[in-house]
């Protein structure tokens, strides 16, 4: 619950950031420089524990609820919204995590399995 206000400010902040970063990531041809390795590995552990049961180990499983490797990397707002509010059979999990953990999950989903 108490994540929501923080998430909101973050979302607004992010909107600006995303526009700026969009150009950067195009220039870097897919390599994502937005995230620190520690943040990604923290997100990987949270993902393995809480998301992989439905989304597959490392986001890979033909029986996955939703192929998160295909989640648009420029739609963090949508990601945070889904996590907070849920969507159909996707439970609203946001309240379980602090803002830094949500950022870590986002980092992992966007950049964690790109090698």
């Amino acid at each position, binding site marked *: 619950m108490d994540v929501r206000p923080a998430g909101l400010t973050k979302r607004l902040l992010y909107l600006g950031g995303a526009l700026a970063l969009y150009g950067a990531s195009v220039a870097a041809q897919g390599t994502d420089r937005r995230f620190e390795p520690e943040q990604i590995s923290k997100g990987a552990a949270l993902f393995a524990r809480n998301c992989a049961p439905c989304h597959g180990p490392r986001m890979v*499983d033909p029986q996955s609820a939703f192929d998160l490797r295909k989640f648009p990397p420029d739609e963090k707002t949508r990601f945070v919204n889904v996590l907070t509010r849920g969507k159909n059979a996707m439970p609203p*999990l946001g309240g*379980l995590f602090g803002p830094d953990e949500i950022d870590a999950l986002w980092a992992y989903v966007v950049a964690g399995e790109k090698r």
Partner: protein
Amino acid sequence: MTRSLLSLGLLLFASCAGVVSAQTLEDLRNDGKNTDNVLTYGMGYHLNRYSALDQINKATVKRLVPVWSLSLDNRWGEQAQPLVYNGVMYVTNARWTVAIDVATGKQIWRTEVDWLPETPRVVCCGVSNKGPALYNGKVFRTTLDAFVVALDQKTGKQLWKSKAADWTEGYSMTVAPLVANGVLLTGISGAEFGIRGFIDGWDPDTGRHLWRRYTTAAPGEPGGDTWGPGDAYKHGGASTWITGSYDPDLDLVYWGTGNAGPWNPEPRPGDNLYVASILAIRPKTGELVWHYQATPNDPYDYDACWELILGDLKIDGGNRKVVMQLNRNGFLYVLDRANGKLLSAKPFEKVTWATHVDMTTGRPVESELGQKVRAGEWIEKWPGTRGAKNWPHAAFNPNTGLLYANTMHAARMYRFLPVEPFKAGQRYMFMEAKDPENRPADLPVGHVDALDPVTAQPRWRMPLQDFAHWGALLATGGGLLFTGKMTGEFLAIDADTGKLLWQFKTGSGINAQPITWTLNGKQYVTVLSGLGGLGEIVNRQKLGNVPQGGSVWTFALLD
């Protein structure tokens, strides 16, 4: 004709006896005798899901048509078994309890179930509800946020509401309650979130809590030494999310327990009583009379929750009163239900985690996979994590002595991840699983099986190529089986051959439990449609063109 006259007679008798206004324990015990009513989960305390009704049969089923449908205004899935009493049908889902006039399909009342929108985060496998219980003028149900509720049958008004557990700690409820010997029994879900499982007994009149039988043993209790040092039993799982059966003569309730927590057994060396077990308990007190553990130490998510079907079987020339279970672990268990003695345990699907069950010790003999997986290696295990059979309930025809089940035919690649400390509300599993890469494309994903309970050999198998069935089976005296598909088709199958005889496409997917009943001497069949549950989650992408949304469908023969 004879049947309708007979039921008329029964009805007259019932009204003279003055028991029409409220169902008694005697009514619950005799469920099935008066076919106008369906009073218990499983269509009888024995959970046979069998009705002798035969108007709808192999010859007439082609004239089966829908007679009414009612929207349940619910996007969460429909998994419930409706109950019928005195011309009123009672239906539950996670959102609503609904009373319906069976003659017209019109809603009489509906009462909302209120839970916080974030509650589904502690629900592993689909937000749903398995159904109500009826007793003494009340409708009983459980709520997603772990309350037990009683409503007035006439008005839907809430009479009492009692808290079973705190949902933020990972506890949730989808189970249909059971009324046995005047006590209301409920189970609990949450073994993926580090709960400590239990079965509760409640006073149906007041909602007062009578007793709690924890399903993981604490130090000092019998079985308390099967958890290793420390307090692993406090988060040891053994949920109780499927309704038990009841033998009124023995006064024993049979209730199965779920997987151990976490799935990685590293913090819980030992058998871990009473995870993945069949329990026989006294409904008045919760006293544990006997137990049988199917999967000691359960490292595989092999719940023993599934329906515990009561029947009389000829075994070695003698008549035995048995309890039967098609376990998630792939074995079909037959036990003497008076004392828990194991009579038979044969695989009904492909099993690689164990070579067999040792009939002298009653224990499974694990294959080499057990050591490998505990050492952290990837293994390919049969049955997969969803089991050789998941919760969709089997039916038992006491006349043919056959079990009919929707089974699964799948392996999973499986390995453990490092165990982290318990965190309330977060997953407590520490494993990962994926599909094997070499699975032949034409391998059936599941079957409808007709099984001999003692040999576990199929009389016939109906292979399923697209989706395994995630709804229960119903068997009838008309030689038919009813069940449904995730893609929405409601099916009638020839119980002797496994041939599909009839189907009708409902509005969403079917993952619920059909029933059959009569009104004015005419036979009806009812099933809920509304995609949900684990079957939806694991097939979400493939089911893209099957919309959500719950409804009730009732069918009868076109005159």
